[in-house]
């Protein structure tokens, strides 16, 4: 596997096509950077500062009508310094069907503000991301493993975790 030290996503200051006015104005005070219009057919997205992740999502929910958290996950770049992970949250506006991907970057061990106060679905979604990547979510009411047993050692979906051979039942 070749070494990937930076993500393929490119960010600019201008919002791409397809982002509604409401979303743009909701995010205007937060100094976000927009991803270039994705050539592979994804949804528009933006990158926010880690500490303002929840703030940005709250602004989108309250003033741009993004009332559903569709998906939540993270991407791991072990060789990217200093921020190893990108946390993704895919939001949807149920009225207009508009979707927006909100991203933030976080270093190993640093925490991300939780979205639990905004959407109820964030509870399990963040537990899953925590379980698979070991990214703590600050303010989460019950941040425990959800798929793996509670005493499991390791974060399975990190790139440096082996596909097999990690057997916790070994002596």
């Amino acid at each position, binding site marked *: 596997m070749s070494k*990937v030290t930076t993500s393929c996503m490119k960010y600019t200051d201008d919002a791409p096509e397809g982002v509604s006015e409401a979303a743009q104005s909701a995010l205007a005070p937060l100094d976000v950077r927009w991803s270039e219009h994705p*050539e592979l057919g994804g949804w528009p997205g933006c990158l926010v500062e880690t500490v303002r992740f929840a703030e940005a999502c709250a602004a989108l929910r309250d003033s741009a009508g993004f*009332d*559903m958290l*569709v998906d939540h996950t993270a991407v791991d770049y072990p060789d990217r310094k200093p921020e190893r992970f990108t946390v993704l949250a895919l939001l949807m506006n149920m009225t207009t069907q508009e979707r927006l*991907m909100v991203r933030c970057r976080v270093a190993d061990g640093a925490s991300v503000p939780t979205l639990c106060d905004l959407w*109820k679905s964030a509870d399990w979604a963040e537990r899953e991301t925590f379980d698979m990547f070991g990214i703590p979510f600050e303010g989460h009411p019950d941040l*425990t493993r959800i798929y793996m047993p509670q*005493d499991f050692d390791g974060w399975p979906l990190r790139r440096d975790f082996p596909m097999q051979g990690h057997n916790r039942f070994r002596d």
Partner: protein
Amino acid sequence: MSTDQTTRDATPEATPDAPPAPTGENPEFSTAPFDTDIRLDAGEDPGERMVLNMGPQHPSTHGVLRLLLEVDGERVHRVVPDVGYLHRGKEKIGETLGYHRYIPYTDRLDYLAPLANNCSATWAFEKVCGIQAPQRAQAIRTVCCELARISAHLLGLGAYGMDIGAMTVFLYTFSERENLYNFFEHLTGARFTTTYTRIGGVARDADDEWLRGVRDFCDGFGKKVDTWENLLTNNRIWRIRNEGVGVIPRDMAISYGLTGPVLRGSGVGYDVRKDRPYGLYADVDFDVPVGQHGDCYDRYLVRIEEMRQSARICVQIIDKMTPGPILADEPKFVLPDKQGVMTGMEQLIHQFMLITGEMDTPKGEVHSHSENPKGEAGYIIRSEGGAAPWRMKYRAPSFVNLQVLKDIVPGHLLADIVAILGSIDFVMGECDK
């Protein structure tokens, strides 16, 4: 309910150094080991409360879901769903093996509707490669998705009925599923682990006999649905057990991110097939049923109507189907025709190279969504080139839908849980990935 797994915990006061009585906010509450991860919420008057363990081996949890219930007599006060008993690391497997070799694993995600999973995965992978399947392949896929939807709803309905006590429905729906299995077997060679789609098309062409058979099946399907509806829809017991049970209000449904029949049962008319059409859904005429009350009965009605609509879609597509290629002509990403692989050296080498990772996908991030029987199945794929995704996230509708149990179960009787679980209709294979 296996009685020997029932645990009746001591109240926290009983042992002096036990942690304080946990509430939802207390992190102590679920970090405890296996048997004690729910404790009695003593409150002012604990009454006759006990902790009851339901699952992971329980006939009506439809797989390996585990529910920890805090009950007072028959009344449930708190429920803690515990998932992960079937976590097989599918995303890791996909990131390791690559796009082509991941398709067989999608069969086992929602194993009640493998064809729908095959299709949703390949639609996502085709977006990554930047190619499109030809018209005929899209038509076959769309028919397959709808047959899979019928098959999944049939099993859901049969198991739901059986859990509530209507054994006959189970036998009817399973006979019908066997008919569908015959179709799947004819088309793909397997009863339900089909691995039918390929990037850029499908594995085999559908012959005329198959298409005729499916059309006849769909034509006569409405009458069969009437038979099952006669057994259930106006059945007094069925209505009492389901009406007003497990009500999910509209706002709660959206906040929990529910999709599929569970969301539509709560009165939100969101359906990916209508709102972001993929496949050939833009060309067909169908209705999206929507419930009014958000209770178990509405979700049941939505599923029944969805089956009728699925049959309708199949008929329309089969009538419009024209002959043509079933694989896109994109040798950089698409496997060669299987017949050629078996007879020609060039094609064999070509297939070998693609499968072993000689494939270079464009870089970028892809989001793809499709309407699976249980709800919206989504892929977020981050590609950094190569034959395998750098990160592949599968949005499992069952996982998201199950979470709502925390809010809707408390206050109901123990027997209602069975109805609620049946009406949410989840698959643990998909939920746990």
